Protein backbone atom coordinates (compact mmCIF):
# COMPACT_ATOMS: atom_id res chain seq x y z
CA UNK A 1 0.00 0.00 0.00
CA UNK A 2 1.57 3.26 -1.08
CA UNK A 3 1.08 6.52 0.75
CA UNK A 4 -0.99 9.36 -0.68
CA UNK A 5 0.83 12.51 -1.79
CA UNK A 6 -0.69 15.98 -1.73
CA UNK A 7 0.33 19.43 -2.91
CA UNK A 8 0.37 21.94 -0.07
CA UNK A 9 2.32 24.87 -1.49
CA UNK A 10 2.83 26.62 -4.82
CA UNK A 11 5.45 29.11 -5.98
CA UNK A 12 6.16 30.47 -9.42
CA UNK A 13 8.31 33.12 -11.07
CA UNK A 14 7.35 33.24 -14.74
CA UNK A 15 7.01 35.51 -17.76
CA UNK A 16 3.24 35.76 -17.17
CA UNK A 17 3.22 36.15 -13.42
CA UNK A 18 5.54 36.36 -10.46
CA UNK A 19 3.28 34.43 -8.09
CA UNK A 20 0.54 31.80 -8.57
CA UNK A 21 -2.38 34.26 -8.38
CA UNK A 22 -0.92 36.63 -10.96
CA UNK A 23 0.14 33.69 -13.12
CA UNK A 24 -3.26 32.04 -13.25
CA UNK A 25 -5.12 35.35 -13.58
CA UNK A 26 -3.06 36.22 -16.65
CA UNK A 27 -3.52 32.77 -18.15
CA UNK A 28 -7.30 32.99 -17.75
CA UNK A 29 -7.29 36.47 -19.26
CA UNK A 30 -5.30 35.18 -22.23
CA UNK A 31 -2.40 37.58 -21.60
CA UNK A 32 0.84 36.70 -23.31
CA UNK A 33 4.26 37.13 -21.70
CA UNK A 34 5.97 36.88 -25.08
CA UNK A 35 7.62 39.93 -26.61
CA UNK A 36 10.81 41.40 -28.01
CA UNK A 37 13.85 40.11 -26.18
CA UNK A 38 15.47 42.84 -24.15
CA UNK A 39 19.19 42.16 -24.18
CA UNK A 40 22.44 43.63 -25.45
CA UNK A 41 22.68 40.97 -28.16
CA UNK A 42 19.13 41.06 -29.56
CA UNK A 43 20.18 42.73 -32.81
CA UNK A 44 22.60 39.89 -33.52
CA UNK A 45 19.75 37.35 -33.50
CA UNK A 46 17.52 36.34 -36.40
CA UNK A 47 14.65 35.56 -34.05
CA UNK A 48 14.18 38.29 -31.50
CA UNK A 49 11.20 37.21 -29.45
CA UNK A 50 11.15 35.38 -26.13
CA UNK A 51 9.13 34.92 -22.96
CA UNK A 52 11.36 36.86 -20.64
CA UNK A 53 10.90 37.78 -17.00
CA UNK A 54 10.53 41.55 -17.15
CA UNK A 55 11.54 44.09 -14.57
CA UNK A 56 13.65 41.59 -12.68
CA UNK A 57 16.11 43.12 -10.30
CA UNK A 58 18.06 40.41 -8.42
CA UNK A 59 18.95 42.77 -5.57
CA UNK A 60 15.25 43.06 -4.73
CA UNK A 61 15.46 39.41 -3.68
CA UNK A 62 19.05 38.75 -2.59
CA UNK A 63 21.86 40.58 -0.84
CA UNK A 64 24.88 41.39 -2.99
CA UNK A 65 27.02 39.00 -0.95
CA UNK A 66 24.63 36.14 -1.69
CA UNK A 67 24.24 37.06 -5.35
CA UNK A 68 27.89 36.53 -6.18
CA UNK A 69 27.33 32.81 -5.57
CA UNK A 70 23.82 32.32 -7.00
CA UNK A 71 23.25 31.94 -10.73
CA UNK A 72 20.17 33.34 -12.44
CA UNK A 73 18.49 29.92 -12.68
CA UNK A 74 19.16 29.30 -8.99
CA UNK A 75 17.79 32.74 -8.17
CA UNK A 76 14.53 31.90 -9.94
CA UNK A 77 14.30 28.57 -8.12
CA UNK A 78 14.92 30.19 -4.72
CA UNK A 79 12.27 32.85 -5.37
CA UNK A 80 9.68 30.25 -6.40
CA UNK A 81 10.59 27.98 -3.48
CA UNK A 82 10.27 30.80 -0.96
CA UNK A 83 6.72 31.42 -2.13
CA UNK A 84 5.87 27.72 -2.05
CA UNK A 85 7.28 27.13 1.43
CA UNK A 86 5.51 30.20 2.78
CA UNK A 87 2.28 29.21 1.03
CA UNK A 88 2.45 25.75 2.60
CA UNK A 89 3.35 27.24 5.99
CA UNK A 90 5.97 24.52 5.98
CA UNK A 91 8.14 24.14 9.03
CA UNK A 92 10.56 21.28 9.40
CA UNK A 93 11.67 20.23 12.86
CA UNK A 94 15.28 19.11 13.08
CA UNK A 95 14.35 15.41 13.16
CA UNK A 96 12.18 15.87 10.05
CA UNK A 97 14.92 17.43 7.91
CA UNK A 98 16.53 14.12 6.89
CA UNK A 99 13.08 13.05 5.64
CA UNK A 100 12.69 16.12 3.42
CA UNK A 101 14.30 16.58 0.02
CA UNK A 102 14.34 18.45 -3.26
CA UNK A 103 13.97 17.30 -6.86
CA UNK A 104 14.33 19.92 -9.59
CA UNK A 105 14.49 19.85 -13.35
CA UNK A 106 16.62 22.01 -15.60
CA UNK A 107 17.67 21.81 -19.22
CA UNK A 108 20.75 23.96 -19.35
CA UNK A 109 21.32 24.99 -15.74
CA UNK A 110 23.80 27.83 -15.51
CA UNK A 111 23.96 28.48 -19.24
CA UNK A 112 24.71 32.17 -18.71
CA UNK A 113 27.69 31.47 -16.47
CA UNK A 114 29.16 28.98 -18.91
CA UNK A 115 28.72 31.40 -21.75
CA UNK A 116 30.29 34.29 -19.85
CA UNK A 117 33.26 32.06 -19.11
CA UNK A 118 33.63 31.07 -22.74
CA UNK A 119 33.56 34.70 -23.85
CA UNK A 120 36.36 35.46 -21.40
CA UNK A 121 38.50 32.48 -22.42
CA UNK A 122 37.91 32.18 -26.15
CA UNK A 123 37.02 35.70 -27.21
CA UNK A 124 38.81 37.99 -24.80
CA UNK A 125 41.55 35.41 -24.18
CA UNK A 126 41.94 36.36 -20.54
CA UNK A 127 44.02 33.92 -18.51
CA UNK A 128 41.46 33.36 -15.76
CA UNK A 129 37.66 33.39 -15.31
CA UNK A 130 35.38 34.00 -12.35
CA UNK A 131 36.44 31.67 -9.55
CA UNK A 132 32.89 30.59 -8.72
CA UNK A 133 32.02 29.62 -12.31
CA UNK A 134 31.78 25.93 -11.52
CA UNK A 135 29.56 26.42 -8.49
CA UNK A 136 27.35 28.91 -10.30
CA UNK A 137 27.00 26.97 -13.51
CA UNK A 138 26.57 23.37 -12.41
CA UNK A 139 23.16 21.91 -13.23
CA UNK A 140 22.47 20.91 -9.63
CA UNK A 141 23.20 24.39 -8.23
CA UNK A 142 19.51 25.34 -7.99
CA UNK A 143 18.39 22.21 -6.14
CA UNK A 144 21.40 22.48 -3.84
CA UNK A 145 20.58 26.08 -2.96
CA UNK A 146 17.05 24.96 -2.05
CA UNK A 147 18.46 22.21 0.09
CA UNK A 148 20.69 24.74 1.87
CA UNK A 149 17.95 27.32 2.32
CA UNK A 150 15.45 24.92 3.89
CA UNK A 151 17.77 22.37 5.51
CA UNK A 152 16.52 19.58 3.27
CA UNK A 153 18.80 16.73 4.25
CA UNK A 154 17.04 14.00 2.27
CA UNK A 155 17.50 13.39 -1.45
CA UNK A 156 18.71 16.33 -3.55
CA UNK A 157 18.60 15.39 -7.22
CA UNK A 158 18.48 17.30 -10.49
CA UNK A 159 16.76 15.81 -13.52
CA UNK A 160 17.77 16.87 -16.98
CA UNK A 161 15.52 15.43 -19.67
CA UNK A 162 15.02 18.61 -21.71
CA UNK A 163 11.33 19.60 -21.88
CA UNK A 164 10.15 16.92 -19.45
CA UNK A 165 12.80 17.56 -16.75
CA UNK A 166 10.57 19.14 -14.14
CA UNK A 167 7.55 16.91 -14.81
CA UNK A 168 9.81 13.97 -14.10
CA UNK A 169 11.21 15.75 -11.03
CA UNK A 170 7.66 16.12 -9.68
CA UNK A 171 6.66 12.57 -10.56
CA UNK A 172 9.76 11.04 -9.02
CA UNK A 173 9.45 13.24 -5.91
CA UNK A 174 5.90 11.98 -5.58
CA UNK A 175 7.13 8.38 -5.79
CA UNK A 176 9.74 9.11 -3.11
CA UNK A 177 6.96 10.05 -0.69
CA UNK A 178 4.54 7.34 -1.87
CA UNK A 179 7.06 4.65 -1.09
CA UNK A 180 8.10 6.09 2.24
CA UNK A 181 11.59 7.38 1.46
CA UNK A 182 10.65 10.97 2.28
CA UNK A 183 7.77 12.84 3.90
CA UNK A 184 8.16 16.24 2.27
CA UNK A 185 9.68 17.14 -1.09
CA UNK A 186 10.16 20.44 -2.87
CA UNK A 187 9.73 19.66 -6.55
CA UNK A 188 9.77 21.71 -9.71
CA UNK A 189 12.16 23.20 -12.19
CA UNK A 190 14.11 26.26 -13.22
CA UNK A 191 15.53 27.59 -16.46
CA UNK A 192 17.45 30.73 -17.45
CA UNK A 193 18.79 30.14 -20.93
CA UNK A 194 17.90 33.26 -22.84
CA UNK A 195 21.55 33.81 -23.65
CA UNK A 196 23.17 34.75 -26.92
CA UNK A 197 24.76 31.37 -27.61
CA UNK A 198 21.80 29.27 -26.52
CA UNK A 199 19.31 31.21 -28.62
CA UNK A 200 21.69 30.95 -31.61
CA UNK A 201 21.73 27.17 -31.14
CA UNK A 202 17.93 27.08 -31.13
CA UNK A 203 17.77 29.32 -34.18
CA UNK A 204 19.95 26.85 -36.04
CA UNK A 205 17.64 23.99 -35.17
CA UNK A 206 14.80 25.80 -36.96
CA UNK A 207 12.16 25.06 -34.38
CA UNK A 208 11.66 28.59 -33.06
CA UNK A 209 8.52 30.53 -33.95
CA UNK A 210 9.00 33.39 -36.35
CA UNK A 211 7.89 36.72 -35.03
CA UNK A 212 4.28 37.64 -35.71
CA UNK A 213 5.00 41.05 -37.16
CA UNK A 214 1.57 42.48 -36.45
CA UNK A 215 1.60 41.27 -32.83
CA UNK A 216 4.85 39.81 -31.45
CA UNK A 217 3.01 38.68 -28.31
CA UNK A 218 0.93 36.35 -30.52
CA UNK A 219 3.91 34.59 -32.12
CA UNK A 220 3.31 31.22 -30.46
CA UNK A 221 0.24 29.54 -31.98
CA UNK A 222 -0.20 25.98 -30.68
CA UNK A 223 -2.55 23.70 -32.66
CA UNK A 224 -3.27 26.46 -35.21
CA UNK A 225 -2.78 25.99 -38.94
CA UNK A 226 -0.40 28.97 -39.01
CA UNK A 227 1.80 27.75 -36.12
CA UNK A 228 5.48 27.70 -36.92
CA UNK A 229 7.40 26.92 -33.78
CA UNK A 230 8.06 27.45 -30.11
CA UNK A 231 9.10 30.54 -28.19
CA UNK A 232 11.86 30.16 -25.59
CA UNK A 233 11.05 31.25 -22.06
CA UNK A 234 12.65 31.49 -18.62
CA UNK A 235 11.54 31.13 -15.02
CA UNK A 236 10.86 28.61 -12.29
CA UNK A 237 8.04 26.80 -10.52
CA UNK A 238 8.28 24.90 -7.26
CA UNK A 239 5.63 22.85 -5.43
CA UNK A 240 5.59 21.50 -1.91
CA UNK A 241 4.65 17.81 -1.97
CA UNK A 242 3.77 16.17 1.28
CA UNK A 243 2.65 12.87 2.70
CA UNK A 244 -1.15 13.29 2.97
CA UNK A 245 -1.24 12.16 6.58
CA UNK A 246 1.42 14.65 7.61
CA UNK A 247 -0.46 17.41 5.80
CA UNK A 248 -3.73 16.42 7.48
CA UNK A 249 -2.12 16.23 10.93
CA UNK A 250 -0.88 19.79 10.72
CA UNK A 251 -4.10 21.04 9.11
CA UNK A 252 -2.39 22.19 5.91
CA UNK A 253 -4.37 23.59 3.03
CA UNK A 254 -4.38 20.94 0.31
CA UNK A 255 -4.51 22.00 -3.34
CA UNK A 256 -4.74 18.55 -4.85
CA UNK A 257 -3.54 14.99 -4.65
CA UNK A 258 -1.05 13.66 -7.19
CA UNK A 259 -2.65 10.40 -8.23
CA UNK A 260 -0.95 9.45 -11.48
CA UNK A 261 2.48 9.63 -13.07
CA UNK A 262 4.40 7.82 -15.73
CA UNK A 263 7.40 8.41 -17.91
CA UNK A 264 8.26 6.62 -21.11
CA UNK A 265 10.73 6.92 -23.94
CA UNK A 266 9.91 7.03 -27.64
CA UNK A 267 13.14 5.21 -28.50
CA UNK A 268 12.57 6.23 -32.11
CA UNK A 269 14.21 9.59 -32.88
CA UNK A 270 16.34 12.14 -31.03
CA UNK A 271 14.01 15.06 -31.78
CA UNK A 272 10.96 13.91 -33.75
CA UNK A 273 8.13 13.16 -31.30
CA UNK A 274 6.29 9.89 -31.55
CA UNK A 275 2.62 9.39 -30.69
CA UNK A 276 3.14 5.77 -29.66
CA UNK A 277 5.61 6.68 -26.89
CA UNK A 278 3.41 9.55 -25.72
CA UNK A 279 0.34 7.30 -25.71
CA UNK A 280 2.14 4.84 -23.46
CA UNK A 281 2.96 7.56 -20.96
CA UNK A 282 -0.65 8.80 -20.92
CA UNK A 283 -2.16 5.32 -20.65
CA UNK A 284 0.23 4.25 -17.92
CA UNK A 285 -0.39 7.44 -15.93
CA UNK A 286 -4.14 6.76 -16.14
CA UNK A 287 -3.56 3.20 -14.96
CA UNK A 288 -1.35 4.48 -12.13
CA UNK A 289 -4.22 6.79 -11.12
CA UNK A 290 -6.75 3.95 -11.50
CA UNK A 291 -8.74 6.27 -13.74
CA UNK A 292 -10.61 6.01 -17.00
CA UNK A 293 -10.23 8.64 -19.74
CA UNK A 294 -13.61 10.20 -18.86
CA UNK A 295 -12.35 10.90 -15.33
CA UNK A 296 -9.92 13.50 -16.70
CA UNK A 297 -11.61 16.88 -17.07
CA UNK A 298 -8.75 18.97 -18.46
CA UNK A 299 -5.42 18.32 -20.14
CA UNK A 300 -2.66 20.90 -20.12
CA UNK A 301 -0.95 19.89 -23.35
CA UNK A 302 2.72 19.91 -24.11
CA UNK A 303 1.57 21.90 -27.19
CA UNK A 304 4.84 23.49 -28.26
CA UNK A 305 3.40 24.86 -31.54
CA UNK A 306 5.89 23.00 -33.68
CA UNK A 307 4.46 21.55 -36.90
CA UNK A 308 4.98 17.89 -36.03
CA UNK A 309 4.71 18.08 -32.24
CA UNK A 310 1.11 19.28 -32.06
CA UNK A 311 -0.09 16.65 -34.52
CA UNK A 312 1.66 13.81 -32.67
CA UNK A 313 0.27 14.93 -29.32
CA UNK A 314 -3.22 15.14 -30.81
CA UNK A 315 -2.82 11.58 -32.11
CA UNK A 316 -1.54 10.39 -28.75
CA UNK A 317 -4.49 11.89 -26.87
CA UNK A 318 -6.86 10.21 -29.34
CA UNK A 319 -5.14 6.87 -28.99
CA UNK A 320 -5.13 7.02 -25.21
CA UNK A 321 -8.56 8.60 -24.69
CA UNK A 322 -10.59 7.01 -27.51
CA UNK A 323 -13.92 8.80 -28.12
CA UNK A 324 -13.50 10.85 -24.99
CA UNK A 325 -10.60 12.68 -26.67
CA UNK A 326 -13.13 14.93 -28.40
CA UNK A 327 -14.87 15.78 -25.14
CA UNK A 328 -11.93 16.64 -22.89
CA UNK A 329 -10.72 20.25 -23.06
CA UNK A 330 -7.01 20.44 -24.00
CA UNK A 331 -5.10 23.71 -23.89
CA UNK A 332 -1.54 24.83 -24.42
CA UNK A 333 -0.63 27.61 -22.05
CA UNK A 334 2.75 27.81 -23.81
CA UNK A 335 0.93 30.20 -26.14
CA UNK A 336 1.29 32.67 -23.25
CA UNK A 337 4.28 31.70 -21.07
CA UNK A 338 6.41 30.24 -23.84
CA UNK A 339 8.55 27.13 -23.52
CA UNK A 340 10.48 27.16 -20.26
CA UNK A 341 12.30 23.93 -21.15
CA UNK A 342 13.52 22.38 -17.89
CA UNK A 343 10.95 24.40 -15.93
CA UNK A 344 8.06 24.01 -18.31
CA UNK A 345 6.65 20.76 -16.92
CA UNK A 346 6.36 22.28 -13.45
CA UNK A 347 4.90 25.55 -14.76
CA UNK A 348 2.25 23.68 -16.74
CA UNK A 349 1.44 21.17 -14.02
CA UNK A 350 0.93 24.17 -11.75
CA UNK A 351 -1.42 25.70 -14.33
CA UNK A 352 -3.40 22.45 -14.29
CA UNK A 353 -3.49 22.34 -10.47
CA UNK A 354 -4.69 25.96 -10.34
CA UNK A 355 -7.32 25.10 -12.97
CA UNK A 356 -8.54 22.36 -10.63
CA UNK A 357 -8.53 24.70 -7.65
CA UNK A 358 -10.46 27.45 -9.44
CA UNK A 359 -12.70 25.26 -11.61
CA UNK A 360 -11.45 27.26 -14.58
CA UNK A 361 -9.67 26.28 -17.77
CA UNK A 362 -7.06 28.59 -19.32
CA UNK A 363 -7.24 28.97 -23.11
CA UNK A 364 -4.90 28.27 -25.99
CA UNK A 365 -4.48 31.76 -27.37
CA UNK A 366 -3.68 32.71 -30.99
CA UNK A 367 -5.81 29.82 -32.26
CA UNK A 368 -7.76 31.49 -35.08
CA UNK A 369 -6.93 29.19 -37.97
CA UNK A 370 -7.91 25.61 -37.16
CA UNK A 371 -5.73 22.80 -38.48
CA UNK A 372 -7.71 19.78 -39.75
CA UNK A 373 -5.01 17.53 -38.30
CA UNK A 374 -5.48 19.08 -34.87
CA UNK A 375 -9.20 18.57 -34.30
CA UNK A 376 -9.68 18.40 -30.50
CA UNK A 377 -11.22 20.99 -28.20
CA UNK A 378 -8.22 23.23 -27.56
CA UNK A 379 -10.20 25.87 -25.63
CA UNK A 380 -9.42 28.44 -28.33
CA UNK A 381 -8.68 31.99 -27.25
CA UNK A 382 -11.15 32.27 -24.36
CA UNK A 383 -10.82 30.55 -21.01
CA UNK A 384 -13.74 28.78 -19.33
CA UNK A 385 -14.82 29.38 -15.79
CA UNK A 386 -18.20 27.61 -15.88
CA UNK A 387 -16.72 24.16 -15.43
CA UNK A 388 -16.40 21.61 -12.67
CA UNK A 389 -13.09 19.85 -12.60
CA UNK A 390 -12.27 16.81 -10.54
CA UNK A 391 -9.04 15.63 -12.15
CA UNK A 392 -6.50 17.17 -14.52
CA UNK A 393 -3.56 15.92 -16.59
CA UNK A 394 -0.35 17.60 -17.69
CA UNK A 395 1.70 16.30 -20.62
CA UNK A 396 5.44 16.87 -21.13
CA UNK A 397 7.14 15.40 -24.17
CA UNK A 398 10.84 16.11 -24.61
CA UNK A 399 13.60 16.14 -27.15
CA UNK A 400 15.39 12.87 -26.69
CA UNK A 401 12.01 11.14 -26.63
CA UNK A 402 11.51 11.35 -22.87
CA UNK A 403 7.79 11.66 -22.05
CA UNK A 404 6.16 12.38 -18.70
CA UNK A 405 2.52 12.64 -17.71
CA UNK A 406 1.17 13.80 -14.34
CA UNK A 407 -2.40 13.56 -13.02
CA UNK A 408 -3.76 15.58 -10.10
CA UNK A 409 -7.13 15.11 -8.46
CA UNK A 410 -9.23 17.08 -6.04
CA UNK A 411 -8.33 15.76 -2.60
CA UNK A 412 -10.92 13.68 -0.80
CA UNK A 413 -10.04 12.53 2.71
CA UNK A 414 -10.73 8.84 3.21
Amino acid sequence: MTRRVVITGLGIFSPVGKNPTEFFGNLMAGRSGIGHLQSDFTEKLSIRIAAQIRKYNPTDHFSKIKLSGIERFSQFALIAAEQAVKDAQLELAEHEQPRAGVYLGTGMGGAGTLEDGYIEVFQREVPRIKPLSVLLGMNNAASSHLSLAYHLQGPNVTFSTACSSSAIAIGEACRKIQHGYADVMLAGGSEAMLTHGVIKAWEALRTLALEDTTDPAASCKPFAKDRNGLVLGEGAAVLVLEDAERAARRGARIYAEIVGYDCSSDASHISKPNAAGQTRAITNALRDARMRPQDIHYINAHGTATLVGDIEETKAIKQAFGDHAYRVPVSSTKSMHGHLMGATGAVEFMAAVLALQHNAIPPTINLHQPDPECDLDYVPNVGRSDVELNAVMSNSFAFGGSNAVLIAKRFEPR
Partner: protein
Amino acid sequence: MSTLQTIQRMMVEQFELKSEDLTPDAELEALGLDSLSVIEFMFNIEDEFQIKLPDERVEIKTIQDISSIVERLVLEQQKAAS
Protein backbone atom coordinates in the same frame (compact mmCIF):
# COMPACT_ATOMS: atom_id res chain seq x y z
CA MET B 1 43.71 56.64 -1.67
CA SER B 2 45.52 54.07 0.48
CA THR B 3 45.37 50.34 -0.20
CA LEU B 4 43.11 49.89 2.80
CA GLN B 5 40.74 52.61 1.63
CA THR B 6 40.55 51.11 -1.84
CA ILE B 7 39.72 47.72 -0.36
CA GLN B 8 37.05 49.26 1.84
CA ARG B 9 35.52 51.06 -1.14
CA MET B 10 35.47 47.83 -3.15
CA MET B 11 33.73 46.00 -0.33
CA VAL B 12 31.06 48.65 -0.13
CA GLU B 13 30.51 48.44 -3.88
CA GLN B 14 30.63 44.69 -4.28
CA PHE B 15 28.76 43.60 -1.17
CA GLU B 16 26.82 46.70 -0.13
CA LEU B 17 28.45 46.63 3.29
CA LYS B 18 28.42 49.72 5.51
CA SER B 19 31.74 51.53 5.40
CA GLU B 20 31.68 52.18 9.17
CA ASP B 21 31.74 48.40 9.76
CA LEU B 22 34.87 47.97 7.66
CA THR B 23 37.51 48.57 10.27
CA PRO B 24 40.95 47.06 9.56
CA ASP B 25 40.51 44.37 12.20
CA ALA B 26 36.95 43.51 11.16
CA GLU B 27 36.69 39.76 10.55
CA LEU B 28 35.38 38.89 7.10
CA GLU B 29 33.23 36.08 8.43
CA ALA B 30 31.56 38.44 10.89
CA LEU B 31 30.77 40.75 7.97
CA GLY B 32 28.85 37.91 6.33
CA LEU B 33 31.51 36.85 3.82
CA ASP B 34 32.07 33.12 3.58
CA SER B 35 35.11 31.50 1.97
CA LEU B 36 33.50 31.65 -1.47
CA SER B 37 32.71 35.36 -1.24
CA VAL B 38 36.32 35.94 -0.25
CA ILE B 39 37.56 34.00 -3.29
CA GLU B 40 35.27 36.10 -5.48
CA PHE B 41 36.51 39.29 -3.82
CA MET B 42 40.18 38.40 -4.21
CA PHE B 43 39.55 37.84 -7.91
CA ASN B 44 38.48 41.48 -8.19
CA ILE B 45 41.40 42.55 -6.01
CA GLU B 46 43.76 41.03 -8.58
CA ASP B 47 42.18 43.17 -11.28
CA GLU B 48 42.10 46.34 -9.23
CA PHE B 49 45.74 46.21 -8.11
CA GLN B 50 47.10 44.47 -11.21
CA ILE B 51 48.62 41.70 -9.14
CA LYS B 52 48.54 37.95 -9.19
CA LEU B 53 47.86 36.02 -6.01
CA PRO B 54 50.31 33.17 -5.42
CA ASP B 55 49.03 29.64 -6.01
CA GLU B 56 49.68 28.60 -2.43
CA ARG B 57 46.88 29.33 0.06
CA VAL B 58 47.18 32.49 2.12
CA GLU B 59 45.40 32.99 5.40
CA ILE B 60 42.88 35.82 5.17
CA LYS B 61 40.75 36.61 8.18
CA THR B 62 40.48 40.37 8.41
CA ILE B 63 40.44 43.36 6.10
CA GLN B 64 43.93 44.20 7.31
CA ASP B 65 45.06 40.73 6.14
CA ILE B 66 43.91 41.56 2.61
CA SER B 67 45.57 44.94 2.72
CA SER B 68 48.89 43.49 3.90
CA ILE B 69 48.93 40.82 1.23
CA VAL B 70 48.10 43.34 -1.48
CA GLU B 71 50.84 45.74 -0.38
CA ARG B 72 53.39 42.93 -0.21
CA LEU B 73 52.47 41.60 -3.64
CA VAL B 74 52.40 45.02 -5.27
CA LEU B 75 55.90 45.67 -4.00
CA GLU B 76 57.23 42.22 -4.94
CA GLN B 77 55.69 42.25 -8.38
CA GLN B 78 56.85 45.81 -9.09
CA LYS B 79 60.38 44.77 -8.17
CA ALA B 80 60.18 41.70 -10.35
CA ALA B 81 58.97 43.80 -13.29
CA SER B 82 61.71 46.42 -13.00
